[in-house]
């Protein structure tokens, strides 16, 4: 790589030495296309297969055979909210939420209804993106002969798009407005039914499974407090206001508890590694392509 840069500055002279260097560079580039690219692609495939293995894909008909994992969500500092969630593949099959309301000492207890489970769309999307990236890579196996650097770049771009999306799906949860949250199907999944002044949300943030609990209080209709709709956000702060069915609500308490999902952490690491591999390959190509685009005038 260093060679090529040095020769770049010497090329205008077009001396005999640079001619030789040019030939060497060309050989080096051919080696890159022939050997190195495939080596990187192989490595990428291995890493991604490993990542894809972490998302246990439900094969049709065999859903029940998926491994169930229990996660206990809580924090050491506060004990108002505690949750036990069961994750099976990409779906939460069971949930146990204990909520201690500040004003009364009683504990509220909610569970998923028997017939319901909550799909974590983030995990499904990430899995599908990883699989699409794998599919792209598998179409160019050892026997395929890359002819140009652009071809490799194009493939890398496509792969990186999928990988970035997969990672972004896990690292950036969907931001929702409070009314969207209140009307989502999640509220109807519990038994006993959620009271009107409590809202919950599940999401993945990085490798953590998060549970948000919002406690609301109804604003009196003739309140003098200046009412402002809260926008969409992943995490709404106390004081956020919204309107639903002609009632105005304000968030009074926010509780967030989380728990690390080990295999999600692995997946994220794999995704980061493969993204870097892709970028490094692109950088290698770009050193040469800037050299090839050079035309002495």
């Amino acid at each position, binding site marked *: 790589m260093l060679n090529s840069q040095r020769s770049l500055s010497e090329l205008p002279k077009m001396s005999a030495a640079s001619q030789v260097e040019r030939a060497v560079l060309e050989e080096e580039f051919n080696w890159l296309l022939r050997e190195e690219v495939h080596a990187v692609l192989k490595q990428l495939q291995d890493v991604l297969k490993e990542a894809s293995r972490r998302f246990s894909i439900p094969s049709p008909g065999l859903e029940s055979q998926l491994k169930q994992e229990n996660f206990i969500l809580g924090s050491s500092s506060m004990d108002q909210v505690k949750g036990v969630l069961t994750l099976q593949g990409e779906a939460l099959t069971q949930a146990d939420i204990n909520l201690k309301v500040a004003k009364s000492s009683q504990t509220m207890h909610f569970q998923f209804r028997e017939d319901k489970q909550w799909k974590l769309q983030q995990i*499904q999307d990430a899995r599908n993106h990883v699989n699409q990236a794998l*599919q792209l890579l598998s179409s160019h196996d050892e026997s395929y002969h890359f002819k140009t650097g652009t071809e490799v770049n194009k493939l890398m771009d496509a792969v990186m798009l999928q990988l970035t999306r997969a990672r972004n799906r896990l690292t950036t949860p969907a931001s929702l407005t409070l009314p969207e949250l209140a009307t989502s199907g999640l509220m109807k999944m519990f038994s006993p039914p959620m009271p009107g002044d409590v809202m919950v949300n599940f999401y993945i*943030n990085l490798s953590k499974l998060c549970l948000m609990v919002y406690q609301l209080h109804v604003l009196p209709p003739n309140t003098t407090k200046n009412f402002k709709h809260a926008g969409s956000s992943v995490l709404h702060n106390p004081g956020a206001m919204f309107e639903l069915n002609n009632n105005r609500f304000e968030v009074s308490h926010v509780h967030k508890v989380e728990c690390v999902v080990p295999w999600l952490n692995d997946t994220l690491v794999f995704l980061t590694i493969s993204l870097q591999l892709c970028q490094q390959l692109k950088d290698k190509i770009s050193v040469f392509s800037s050299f090839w685009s*050079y035309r002495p005038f």
Partner: protein
Amino acid sequence: MSGNSLVLPIVLWGRTAPTHCISTLLVMDDFSTIITGCHDGQICLWDMTSDLEICPRAMLFGHTASITCLSKASACSDKQYIVSASESGEMCLWDVNDGRCIEFTKLACTHTGIQFYQFTIGTQREGRLLSNGLYPEILVMDATSLEVLYSLVSKISPDWISSMSIIRSHRTQEDTVVAMSVTGILKVWIITAEVSRMQDLDPVFEEESKPVYCQGCQSISFCTFTQRSLLVICSKYWRVFDAADYSLLCSVPSDNDQSWTGGEFIAADKVIIWTEDGCSYVYKLPPSEHFRSHVGKTKESLVPPLIYKIAERSDKELLICPPVTRFFFGRREPFHKLLIQGDSAGQLSLWSIPDSTPQQPLSAAAELQVSSTISLQEAFDKLTPVSAGIIDQLSVLPSKEEPIKVTASVYIPSQGRLVCGREDGSIILVPATQTAIVQLLQGEHMLRRGWPPHRTLRGHRNKVTCVLYPYQISPRYDQRSLVSGGVDFSVIVWDIFTGEMKHIFCVHGGEITQLIVPPENCSTRVQHCVCSVASDHSVGLLSLRERKCIMLASRHLFPIHVVKWRPADDYLVVGCSDGSVYVWQMDTGALDRCVMGITAVEILNACDELAPATVDALSHSAVNLKQAMTRRSLAALKNMAQHKLQTLATNLLAADNADKGNLPKYSHNALVVQAMKTNLTDPDMHVLFFDVEAVIIQLLTEEAQRPNPTLVSPETLQKSQAGADKGGSFLANKIFKQVKETMKETIKEHLLDEDEEEEEEMRRREEKSKSLSLLEYNLTMDTAKLFMSCLHAWGLNEQLDNICLERLGMLRPHCPISFGLISRGGHMSLMLPTFKESLLRQLSLATGLKLTLSDIVGKGTYGVSRAVTTQHLLSVISLANTLMGMTNATFVGEHMKKAPARPPRPGGTPESPRRMQATPPQPSNPALQAQIKQAAVAATANTGTVTTAAGPPGAPGAPPQGAPGSPSPGPALNVPSVNEGWSQLAAMHCVMLPDLLGLDKFRPPLLEMLARRWQDRCLEVREAAQALLLAELRRIGVSGRKDTIDMWASYLPQYVDTVSSPGSTSEAPSPAPPPPDAQPIETKASEEEMDVVDDDITTGSLVRYNVLVSLLVMLHIRCCCCYCYSYYYYCYCYYSYSYYYYSYYYWYYYCYYSYSYSYYYYCYYYCYYSYSYYYYYYYY
């Protein structure tokens, strides 16, 4: 909004066709248009003839990411709409005929497939778009508003939908959606009437969900011939299922590591399947009875016979990604069955699939030959003359064929100069209008080599990748400095006036990719920096004042995607392509933070909130274009257009001073040259944006500043000139003069370099002319000259053409010019240079004559599309009117060489009229005038009679009878011939064009677009729109007007319907409802005044005009305002008033043809007077 002002783009594509790496394609139902989308986000429209000749016509810009899918979006053939979706979730509805963007929207999710379907609900059919993509639902959208109406969701194992198909079952008479999820589960939804009517977002659950074990499904399709089988293509095999119970009928694996990517039924018993690398195979399925008897015992080995094979082509070597293959069959004559393939080189290949099976034994599959193939570059290469690039004449080296490519450019509007960095490392500075004139128009400049005068900056060793003129963005920078970056890793600072290289920065370890100006409120040290981004993923702050790099933020792992600022915290925020964000302290150069995920998004968003203007997305040229478009038309013009001549000049000066601090310099420029590239590796192509409103204002300003030699002293003139010259102060002028001397020297040198053996005398003459016009050419007039020459419909009226050439100084274009059309939200359609080929073919077909290219120069563009015609006619008429109002506004003569307000040189002023006298070749002026006048009157009379014949007797005929009576021939002879020339030009475009061109070559203007300009803020444009609207209404005759009313009536509120229905009497509309309480007394007065005038003209059809006009205007208002109700009321008032008003306008209109200028102006002002009331009313 850019959609509001009248801006016309002209494109100079250059010889290299834009990169068009096809990602998806579509053939319209009538097989006359192919549409391709590419990975860079552009959409290309290709015309196809019935014998499968293809020619690219236009390119649509607006998407910022790769196009993922295209679909038709309307059922009827007269209104051809398509919808496109991109990787970033944008959706856009386009009109195929003219490339207008009708509607656009953006969702957070990416669509990978869209299908149009008309659901039948009772007797009604409603167009819907169904989309699937990277989400587990199928979204159902309205096909005209692109609003999501409801979604189809799955209850059982929901997952992404990889493909879907919609069918109307004969058995159940219900619309059925069949889809395959990525995990291989077949899902069926039934759309019932109740579902279709549903408006809220309640989900619709699937009717059936069946695992069919098809992993990696690529596409599914129904057999439309029998409706009994379903074809499912997976990458490793394809299968046929029974459409009723989804039982497997046959399965064919792919051989030797090829993967199937798609397929279709081409007949009841034949399927075509294609692979990723572009081969296709036609299989014959067993007869269906036989087929179905085998259900359940299908053997894998039972492969249906292969009958045709379409091999990949040998020249596929250089493809960089898999080609896209699609199959389409015509449901109408000539029943084409076409297999179309688009590849990464922008090439389309067509195969016509025969219905018959080959005669030979079935064991050997017959090879099918390609029917037609063309690539964008081939189409460009075939053109004669070749498609022009903006500085081609300066870039062709003597030894080489191809010009040196322009790789980066920036336009400096204040000086009217274009800076072009080229691939050989040189930078060229050239007057933009002059070089555009060379490229587009014929004239004496063709004889001069090296014209226009330019200067070359040499310093970069290799390709220049970016150029920045910081002063244009903020006045805190030195007016002289120009910054450029190259692939040789260096950033060079130039003095543009001396051509001196001031400093070379070599701080980066990679090609410079972008140069950015930091925002206003940074620390003083940073304020004098430019920010450079390089391909080694580093960002540098280069101080132009200190001539050193004050900070280098490097070692980012991924390419830099965006650079943002937090000036208050002294932070530079770098967003990388993988989503990570690096926060750097500008002062210390320390890395403050490196974050990912939500925090990263939040940090980037926080920067936007603080300073929305400082966002610089590096990713895509289309984004930059959009920004440029929005920036250009700022509020500065808004009020000015409504003022009249005298006040305008002072206002402009005041506004200019006031705005200096906060408005971009180029916010009100008649001409903006924008460099664009569809792909980073492409050379620049240049789009010249003409803002008609700004041209008019600048012309009027100059007119107002025109010196009256007896009254004005040179000093004041100097001052006003300095102010009017928007870029320069008085000091700057001095510098210009100095610089001019040095530049003259360099040019001399340059010339000596290039043309050594050129004749001595010739050279001297050239130098003389160059030194004259080096910096002193009149930018405004030059712009107007270029613009008018491009717009005029040449070759329709010999005499008028001569007047244009010789008296008005216009120039004839070399060949038809590629225009563009800007529509909503900065979406843009640009004609490819090859459009003329297809236009020629189309016109030849229509007229039955063999036409050559020169036959359609100028006038050809009026046959392209109705929207284009509207824009062009509006521009040409409003500009001609403006020029007509100016004194001696001609493009020939000395005054073109310098600004008009400059104090006249001794002997200078008398010379120009003398020259003018000398130039006309005709022996006698009055004789010619008489001729022209006769012709014009004849033409007017002609159109008059035509309409009389078409319309009811006496109705439209009445005004023409009055017309000859009103003008007195006396004043016409005293009028300067230049003005008369302009008036004839305007008249020809306003009324005579349809007759002169004939309807097969003329696409009439769109009434609704004209109605939208009815209250345009620029008076000239408004008048042009009104005159055109009237002319058009008259042209379409009674039946046409009736059709228009019928078409629009359904969109109107109920109580107007009674009035507007065509069958009703031609009485005046019912009196206006009581006016709002604060109505001024003046309005009443004017009403009465107009009543008097109204009595003069009594025609029945007039009222119908009024109805139509007001109808259109109302419709427009209704479209614009969401809160309609309050507006209805005002519409109503407006409606009744337009009656009076219109009758008056009609009168004015006819005066227009009479060459009596006094009369004309009288009417003109009278109309203006009445306008003000309307304005009051309208805005009240």
